């Protein structure tokens, strides 16, 4: 690890390498544990938690907003893809949490062939990194058709722990 690498980049490097070496599809999305309103699957990866009446957990809702605010400009509405970038509602059927985080933070390039695709490294963008799990949770739900397209109609209230973490991460603007 080169000493000048920033924390985020170093993390991306580690995660990206891990993702490449141990690329494994996401496991069963079933939530087995919920801490302060945030759910985790049996592997300990963040996941969604949707009630029978369609009410989504706050992280899924937050992920929707942040996806639409920061990702949809290239990846299209609701993870559906565009003429510019792939449909993440499909990609996340095969990309697990670690690989997802690695790509988001470190970026990736697939250029040439007249169809240049470049994913930027978003490790320095707090609007993304502070909500990385939220975005993953939302897209994971989309990849399993657990939430439909569009803004979720009903969501749980914002957990106090979310509020606290958000404020700490985003800082004073």
């Amino acid at each position, binding site marked *: 690890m080169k000493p000048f690498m920033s924390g985020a980049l170093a993390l991306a490097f580690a995660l990206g390498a891990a993702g490449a070496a141990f690329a494994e599809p996401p496991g069963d999305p079933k939530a087995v544990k919920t801490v302060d309103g945030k759910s985790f699957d049996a592997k300990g990866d963040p996941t969604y938690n949707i009630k029978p009446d369609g009410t989504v957990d706050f992280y899924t809702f937050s992920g929707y907003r942040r996806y639409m605010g920061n990702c949809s*400009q290239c990846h299209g*509405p*609701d993870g559906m893809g565009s003429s510019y970038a792939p449909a993440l509602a499909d990609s996340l059927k095969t990309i697990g949490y670690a690989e997802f985080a690695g790509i988001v933070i470190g970026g990736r390039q697939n250029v040439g062939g007249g169809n240049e695709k470049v994913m930027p490294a978003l490790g320095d963008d707090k609007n993304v990194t502070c909500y990385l799990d939220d975005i993953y949770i939302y897209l994971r739900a989309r990849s399993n058709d657990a939430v439909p397209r569009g*803004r979720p109609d009903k969501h749980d209230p914002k957990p106090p722990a979310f509020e606290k973490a958000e404020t700490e991460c*985003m800082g004073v603007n």
Partner: protein
Amino acid sequence: MRKLLLSTCIGASALIFCGAANANEALQKMSQNPKDWVMPTGNYFNWRYSELKQITPDNVKSLAPAWTFSTGVLRGHEGAPLVIGDVMYVHTPFPNIVYALDLNNDGKILWKYEPKQDPSVIPVMCCDTVNRGLAYGDGKILLAQADTTLVAIDAKTGKAVWSTKTGDPTKGQTSTAAPMVMKDKVMLGISGGEFGVRAWMAAYNLADGKLAWKGYSMGPDADTLMSENTTNLGKPVGKDSGIGTWQADQWKIGGGATWGWYSYDPALNLMYYGSGNPSTWNPKQRPGDNKWSMTIWARDVDTGQAKWVYQMTPHDEWDYDGINEMILSDQTIDGKARKVLTHFDRNGFGYTLDRTNGELLVAEKYDPAVNWASKVDMDKSSKTYGRPLVLDKYSTDKQGEDVNTKGICPAALGTKDQQPAAYSPQTELFYVPTNHVCMDYEPFKVSYTAGQPYVGATLSMYPPAGETNMGNFIAWDGKKGKIVWSDKEQFSVWSGALATASNVVFYGTLEGYLKAVDAKTGKELYKFKTPSGIIGNVMTYEHGGRQYVAVLSGVGGWAGIGLAAGLTKPTDGLGAVGGYAALSNYTALGGQLTVFALPK
């Protein structure tokens, strides 16, 4: 015209001004030759109109492809090629290849110029790696590369003559606009409103690429090139007006990008263009009018000094960029001959102003669906004169952060985006490609990091209630502010129009059709489906005694991103048809030029 131009050849700077006037005159003369197409906008007035009349309402039904050319790039193809004499100049999206094609030899490639650019610029380009075209002046082809390098290429040899870096992509600055040559200068703005870029308009010397002047969209007068003579609706703007309507230092990341089309009135020595949205999309985070984002600018071509400004959407709450083209014409309004400027804004109002002084003459909705404001206040004695009267229920600022404000028309796409309208002096009508889409808009808190997106809102888009068409192609009377006829289109019309002297009007559609309609009635006369969706602009030229019509296909741009998957409204459920259909069911990526002519 000659007289007017020569009248500037007086005083101490006579030599400079005379030289400029001559170079200027050459290009102006070329733009009056209907056989050529020497600037993307057709002429300095942005008419996109041709005197050619071989293709008529009667015979256009026989139009057929004469030859085609693949650009080798599969991205959104905006803009249109240039034709100068026997050579056609075709540009592409990133990597911004320029081809010179021999019209005497079935489009054989005379030369190809491909710049080397760092691909990391790609994701900094909000809404696809589009490029809106080339400029020509004094034997040079001007290309604004994605990475903000402005390069002058020898039109004969394809070799770079000079190049100059106009911005910094690592700070979110990119180029998508077509430069325009005016006198001895090349005008070029900057993209990056979604990255907190404080944007500018700049003039570079056509001879060597050196910066001549640079006027920012916001900041102190020394930056905006405003003075005590700069007016807004007839009144002086006052000192440092580009700072006072911002909270603290927010103007430094204020946006106001300048990626649209530019126009020029040689007689007034003024250039016109619009500035885009203030950064961020969350209006709560930037109180104030945010001047001079969302503004029509009139600047002196030689010095950049702002003569007048008019802000259409103070304190934007919907991303209604003001960058759309300014079309210049001479028309009689209320019995008075006027030099007017007509502008179809993203915010859904069609504006007619007196371009000599910025007086507001007409401001009317050019899509009946527009609802965010009841009207523009035209009462000169009113405190809100010239401002849109915003309805609280559609104000994303009044509704507030973390509130989903519903049913706003138009959507952020605008009633029209960059796809330029055409003007016919025969009919005195404007032919306008429009979007017919509404949205829900929810602003939320964002933090600014240089070179990273600075958006701060989420939105979902859908056709107006009870309707399925997402676009209209309309004819507009700018004197009265009235729609004369309107043709429905299933998708937004994202292609620039072309009007001709024979009263045939052309445009492209997102499914990929090139269409011809009657200028007087809007009746469809011809259509042909090209290989990919059209977001390029239709142009025409004459070669070897034949009139040709050409258009680039290659779906993409914001249309390709927003519409590829189809629109949706959560309350309406899935699987809806009509207006909700996915563009991806109709067309796929492409990059092709199709050139049409009547059969021999």
